[in-house]
């Protein structure tokens, strides 16, 4: 067996093993068994690193390993499951392993004294297992299975503190919203299987290029698959679950809602990019662009530190989807990589702040103040220097400041979008979404930093109890803060304004297999052409956003309150998340509930009472009649009659049994004579 396949098996199944050990024996192990999960995830990271290093040493952009086995064999109908390992897979495996490892370590202190400590680590293992399954899948079928497993483990992790009603609801909401997307995913899979007869990506691609499925059907199938991605990557209009999912423990947010689970949707879109038709891609681009812009506009007004990050995640995922839609899908994957690092770090940073707030409030016996509300923070900069500097690096990355990773990836996306808009001027809105979201991102991220770390403490007597978090928490912060620099993603090139490096060398865009799509070279040439313009504009809008933020929250040259009043309705919309939850409640949930009540009424009053009960009464009546027939006719006449007849015959004919031998001889002789007489006629 190939080394990559072997290592992948370890990477896939070690977290599952840790999950099984933890869920069954976790409570009885010393330290509640966290070392089991942590050693498993470290081994996974080790293998992922080896694979990554071997990828870098081979430096082969066409590297591809596939292995599969027959999972279901019913004659003609066969389902094969297997692994597909190429450079994208290896990079993704490293992201998952790295962020998962950081999360494990971070959680040691963050969830210290938690009542379900061992179960928490078990679920982290299950989650990592399912995510690795998605990454390794070479076919839509096993991807769908692991996709659902990710859904389940996210449900379990978001609802970790299920005693809190909001957490229980959030987990339910996440699960159900994902289901909506998964229906589309499933329809897409079935459409493709119906046409191509296989689930494997390679067969699907060759089937599409040979025209087995084309036109509207292919568009619908592609959009179906993309609907799954919309659910997982929380794209408009299925974005509503992600902000609520912040009810989960913060390290979980870092793992799932920044780096891995939501990345699954983008990963799927990157994998299926070659089969998306131009129509589908256009819709993908608009969904992504709109999500990027609109989530960013919500993040501006949020006061909960995790909600800001949540909407910023939705917005950044929108960027990635936008990149897929405009054809620069390697840029989407690049942004996925860089975003995973800096967004996970931002979540760890916010976790560190919340942890510290929580302890400070606990010391004061204050259980009413919200430890996540930025209106209660301020001035933490000197108290928590490591957290501050690490978060600042990641904030600069996400805001798109040069020499940081986010600048490069966002720039690649914006270049692709700008090129798309230049080629199709009627879609200029996409570019506006892109650059507008970039400006807003810079603004709200620095707003978050300023409100949390700068200025005067909003609760002055709390500040003395704010301390830097323990080593287990600052370790991941330092590591990922370091990974926010551009250099890691462009080696061996040192130009901070150019994307070129190992990533662009190793992850080459594939041509779409749909006939008539733009080729990868054309897209790349367009993006290259638009690169400098996009770069200047993106630096400009980022600087503008940061400056505005500084003006509002440091210099106080502009008052946030006054501006909020002046743009009252916009402010209202933004702080209330455009009333999405309310409108969904009003126009979807409530009508559905009312409809369900009506249907329940029909079910009970009509169906149950008349049809089911009537059927029962009918059966009762029929069985009474048939019982009567059975007893009175069959039993009495046929069965008993046979017996009675036999008895009658017996009584009649026993009279001729006289016991006298000569009588019998007489009968025989008489019989013979009678026969002879009959014969003679």
């Amino acid at each position, binding site marked *: 067996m190939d080394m990559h396949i072997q290592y992948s098996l370890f990477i896939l199944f070690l977290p599952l093993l840790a999950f099984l050990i933890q869920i069954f024996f976790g409570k009885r192990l010393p330290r509640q068994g966290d070392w089991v999960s942590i050693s498993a995830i470290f081994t996974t990271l080790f293998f992922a690193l080896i694979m990554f290093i071997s990828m870098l040493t081979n430096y082969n952009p066409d590297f591809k390993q596939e292995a599969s086995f027959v999972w279901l064999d019913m004659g003609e109908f066969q389902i094969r499951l297997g692994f597909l390992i190429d450079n994208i897979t290896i990079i993704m495996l490293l992201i998952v392993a790295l962020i998962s490892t950081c999360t494990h370590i971070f959680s040691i202190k963050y969830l210290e004294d938690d009542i379900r400590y061992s179960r928490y680590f078990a679920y982290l293992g299950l989650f990592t297992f399912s995510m690795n399954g998605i990454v390794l899948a070479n076919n839509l079928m096993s991807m769908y299975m692991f996709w659902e497993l990710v859904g389940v483990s996210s449900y379990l992790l978001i609802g970790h503190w299920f005693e809190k009603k909001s957490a229980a609801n959030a987990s339910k909401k996440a699960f159900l919203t994902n289901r909506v997307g998964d229906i589309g995913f499933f329809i897409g899979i079935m459409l493709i299987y119906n046409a191509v007869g296989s689930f494997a990506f390679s067969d699907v691609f060759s089937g599409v290029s040979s025209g087995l499925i084309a036109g509207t059907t292919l568009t619908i199938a592609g959009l179906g698959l993309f609907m799954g991605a919309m659910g997982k990557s929380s794209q408009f209009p299925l974005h509503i679950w992600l902000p609520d999912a912040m009810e989960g423990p913060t390290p979980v947010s870092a793992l799932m809602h920044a780096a891995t689970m939501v990345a699954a949707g983008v990963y799927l879109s990157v994998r299926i990019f070659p089969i998306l038709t131009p129509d589908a891609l256009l819709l993908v681009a608009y969904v992504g662009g709109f999500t990027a812009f609109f989530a960013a506009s919500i993040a501006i007004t949020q006061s909960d530190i995790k909600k800001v990050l949540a909407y910023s995640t939705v917005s950044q995922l929108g960027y990635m989807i936008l990149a897929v839609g405009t054809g620069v899908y390697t840029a989407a994957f690049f942004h996925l990589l860089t975003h995973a690092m800096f967004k996970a770090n931002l979540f760890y940073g916010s976790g560190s702040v919340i942890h510290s707030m929580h302890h400070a409030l606990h010391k004061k016996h204050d259980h009413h103040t919200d430890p996540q509300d930025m209106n209660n923070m301020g001035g933490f900069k000197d108290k928590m220097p490591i957290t501050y500097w690490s978060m600042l690096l990641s904030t600069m990355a996400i805001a798109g400041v040069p020499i940081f990773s986010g600048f490069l990836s966002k720039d690649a996306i914006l270049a692709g979008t700008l090129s798309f808009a230049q080629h199709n001027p009627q879609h200029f809105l996409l570019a506006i979404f892109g650059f507008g979201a970039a400006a807003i991102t810079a603004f709200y991220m620095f707003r978050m930093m300023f409100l949390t770390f700068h200025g005067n403490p909003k609760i002055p007597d709390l500040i003395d109890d704010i301390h830097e978090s323990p080593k287990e928490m600052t370790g991941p912060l330092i590591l990922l803060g370091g990974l926010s620099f551009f250099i890691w993603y462009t080696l061996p090139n040192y130009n901070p304004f150019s994307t070129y490096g190992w990533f662009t060398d190793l992850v080459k865009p594939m041509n779409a297999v749909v006939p008539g799509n733009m080729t990868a070279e054309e897209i790349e040439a367009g993006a290259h052409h638009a690169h400098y313009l996009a770069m200047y504009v993106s630096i400009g809008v980022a600087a503008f956003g940061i400056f505005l933020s500084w003006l509002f929250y440091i210099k106080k040259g502009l008052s946030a309150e006054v501006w909020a009043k002046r743009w009252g309705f916009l402010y209202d919309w933004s702080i209330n998340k455009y009333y999405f939850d309310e409108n969904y409640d009003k126009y979807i949930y409530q009508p559905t509930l009312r409809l369900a009540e009506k249907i329940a009424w029909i079910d009970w009053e009509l169906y149950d009472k008349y049809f089911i009960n009537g059927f029962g009464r009918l059966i009762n009546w029929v069985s009474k009649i048939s019982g009567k027939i059975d007893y009175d006719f069959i039993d009495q006449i046929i069965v008993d009659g046979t017996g009675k007849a036999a008895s009658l015959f017996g009584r009649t004919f026993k009279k001729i*049994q*006289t*016991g*006298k*031998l*000569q009588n019998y*001889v*007489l009968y025989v*002789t008489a019989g013979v004579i009678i026969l002879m007489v009959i014969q003679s006629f």
Partner: protein
Amino acid sequence: MDQLNNYLFIAAALFSIGLFGVMTRRNGIAVLMGVELILNAANINFIAFSRFGGMNLDGHIFGLIVIVLAAAEAAVALAIVINIYNNMNTINIDDASTMKE
């Protein structure tokens, strides 16, 4: 004189006598004797048909078989009669009707 009919008459007479004996005698031994007469009536028929029908010795063979059979039958039947006598102190066959209801 040497005609088939004569033999058949004798055989029929013998059969009738035998049948009459079987049907009327009360004594078990006498009944057996009737049976012997019936068997020998059949023997005569066999021989007669064999001779006048031009069937070589086929009838004779059957006659011999019937004689052997009659001997075996007589042995079994006499044993039965002896058993009846042992159990009931009589050989009147009308008394051997205990299986009657």
